């Protein structure tokens, strides 16, 4: 018999404003920010889903959704244009007399209970659109079933110093969770929540409705739903993930993650035919490397035109580097142009930005530790005037 039924539906939270990315998210949602040369952040969870055989995905959008909507389109680049299922963009909508913005992560799913119900799934996978990682969700789902859990939370081992920046899961020897501490001052363990959850839908549905009735709740998974389920004695399990995972919510971490793509030992290998990351293609010709170009240790993609010196950098689609320009340790987003003689170091250059002739942006940094890089940013469509000097950590809008 033909039905709409799906075993597992993914709900991807993509409504965040991404305020800590400043001008990079002024005009677009964080999941739509460019990454790794030809990708956007959202390509990672979408590709992970399709590679894990999850073909029904609701993408919850709220903040500046146009770029993201257009980018997702009918889902074809991810093979998500399906007769039954596929990818759905779900903005907040009118219900009877009322309408509400998504008040929190849990509320966003609550407002789309009817959407999930249409597929009568046993399980719901909750994802967020601001992490770079490759993960097989089908293994996590198998683990969830095996443990007979009500909720499984993916965790990654972080250093003790970092632990106080995350939601920490304290677990029993069988990996069941007995305590959840949101950004604890004195962490008891180093199992950080990755913001990836699998719930039994029937149970989550009930908790979402109860949470909505509780006027004091912030309608957040980490702050409300998970603690409530724990308090009620539901079976929560931690699922250990050991691959590459990075939250790219800050300028520094976004830059770092791009540099990780350059480093074969970082663990985020994009050139893996068994786990491809898919992206919408822009139909540009191969990149051209000019007579005076010098390129080393860099990633360069279609539509680029390189005539200057590029090292330790990631260049996105359609970037132009003119003669005599020097680009070191940078992430340059689509369509940006670095004019003759300009020197750009340790910087993120936004979409279609122009760095004028002989301008100087950022400078070399030594001996920094992760998370503390002083990265200079030239925002999308911004212009750095010829000969202008943009100091370290400045942001040009």
């Amino acid at each position, binding site marked *: 018999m033909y039905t709409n039924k799906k075993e597992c539906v993914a709900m991807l939270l993509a409504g965040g404003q991404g305020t800590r990315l400043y001008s990079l998210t002024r005009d677009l949602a964080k999941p739509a920010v460019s990454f790794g*040369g030809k990708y956007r952040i959202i390509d990672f969870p979408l590709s992970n889903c399709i590679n894990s055989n999850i073909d029904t995905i609701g993408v919850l959008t709220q903040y500046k959704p146009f770029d993201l909507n257009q980018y997702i389109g009918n889902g*074809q680049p991810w093979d998500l244009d399906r007769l039954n299922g596929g990818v759905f963009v779900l903005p907040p909508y009118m219900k009877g007399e009322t309408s509400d913005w998504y008040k929190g992560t849990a509320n966003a799913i609550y407002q789309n209970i009817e959407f999930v119900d249409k597929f009568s799934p046993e399980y719901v996978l909750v994802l967020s659109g601001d992490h770079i990682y490759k993960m097989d969700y089908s293994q996590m789902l198998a683990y969830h079933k095996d443990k007979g859990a009500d909720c499984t939370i993916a965790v990654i081992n972080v250093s003790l110093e970092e632990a106080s920046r995350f939601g920490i899961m304290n677990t029993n020897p069988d990996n069941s969770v007995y305590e959840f501490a949101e950004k604890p001052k004195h962490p008891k363990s180093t199992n950080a929540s990755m913001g990836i959850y699998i719930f039994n839908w029937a149970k989550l549905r009930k908790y979402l409705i109860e949470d909505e009735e509780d006027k004091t709740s912030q309608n957040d998974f980490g702050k409300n739903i998970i603690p409530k389920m724990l308090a009620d004695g539901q079976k929560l399990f931690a699922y250990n993930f050991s691959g590459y995972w990075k939250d790219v919510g800050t300028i520094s971490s976004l830059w770092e993650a791009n540099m990780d793509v*350059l480093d074969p030992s970082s663990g985020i290998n994009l050139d893996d035919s068994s786990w491809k990351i898919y992206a919408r*293609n822009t139909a540009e010709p*191969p990149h051209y*490397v000019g007579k005076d*170009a010098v390129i080393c240790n*860099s990633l360069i*993609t279609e539509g680029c035109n390189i005539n200057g010196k590029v090292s330790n950098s990631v260049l996105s689609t359609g970037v132009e580097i003119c003669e005599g320009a020097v680009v070191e340790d940078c992430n340059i987003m689509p369509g940006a142009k670095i004019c003759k003689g300009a020197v750009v170091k340790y910087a993120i250059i936004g979409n279609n930005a122009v760095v004028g002739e002989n301008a100087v942006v950022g400078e070399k940094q030594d001996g920094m530790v992760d998370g503390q890089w002083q990265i200079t940013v030239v925002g999308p469509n911004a212009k750095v005037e010829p000969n202008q000097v943009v100091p370290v950590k400045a942001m040009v809008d």
Partner: protein
Amino acid sequence: MNNAMSIIFASDHESKLNELTLHRTSASLPVYGRYRCIDFALSNLVNSSITTIGIITRSNYSSLMDHIRMGRDWDLNRKNSGIAVFPPYASNTSRNVFKGKIEALYGILDYIENSDDEYVIVTNSNIIASIDFDDVYEAHVQSGADITVLTYNAHPTTSRRVLVESDLSGRIRGMRITQSASDELCEIGLYCYMFNRKQLIRLISDSYERGKIDLEKDILQANLDNLKIHAYKVKGHAALIDDVKSYYRESMAVLDSQIRNSLFYSVGKVFTKVKDSVPTRYCEGAEVVDSLIADGCKINGKVENSILFRGVVVEEGAVIKNSIVMEGGKIMKGSRLNYAITDKDVTVTEDKSLSGSENYPVVVVKNKTV
């Protein structure tokens, strides 16, 4: 223009491409790092809103089918119109595959008759040019032509060329079909035509019934006096690829930024099958100049004045000069290529050297290991 359909010939006069078309039609000949020849015809048509496209194949067409699939990458997977691929036509009475374009068109006359478009673009697929068919249409209507022949200026080669002589109004008064090379710059037909559909049907039926097979000779050349046949000179860069020499020369021409701009950025985008390759990685030992590099490559050697297709690996100490390395090529440590064309998935093992010359590049056949 929304009142035209198109018929593309996937193969024509490809015998001189030798090894390069051993396993494929000239339509699916790989060019410029990530394209196949037919991408230009398809993209030009789509960019001019012509979306009813029939492709006539003759032999070796599986690589073409794999490239085109349902036409999605050109936005041609439509409910109405879209792409139709015709396998080689053989009538029930004769068991032979069609001999010439007239017979081939006669074989799909139903398809042309079923359309209600007013015009038909009939084109070869080995044309490299960015053509604005809206502009061709305007010229066609303005001149009141029965047939418009697209042309470009070039030197005749030893491949079959249609030389046209037109008067001041653009009407073609003389036509020579020749295979002798010359240093003289001539106006040459691009094997791309605009017909009025109903007239094309009449011309094809009539010529077929009279046993004619050659479209250029029996329909164009024979009718210069009876029909108004006009020339339309294509703007920007144009070329025909029909032998190894022209393939090599045209490939290298794209390293010139003016020609690159004319082909890729003047009229519309050039679409092709998307393969989701990663960006190209330049390693510590990379030294690349004056080259066109597709995605998915890994470069740790020297590349100069060359074209690398998707997924090519250049190992440490390898040197590639004046060469074309097609998809999946692997050039291992210490190897040297000069004036070479290596077809798909060729491996050149360590410390080998391949060298040809500018007018006679060495060609290594698909899947071979040197």
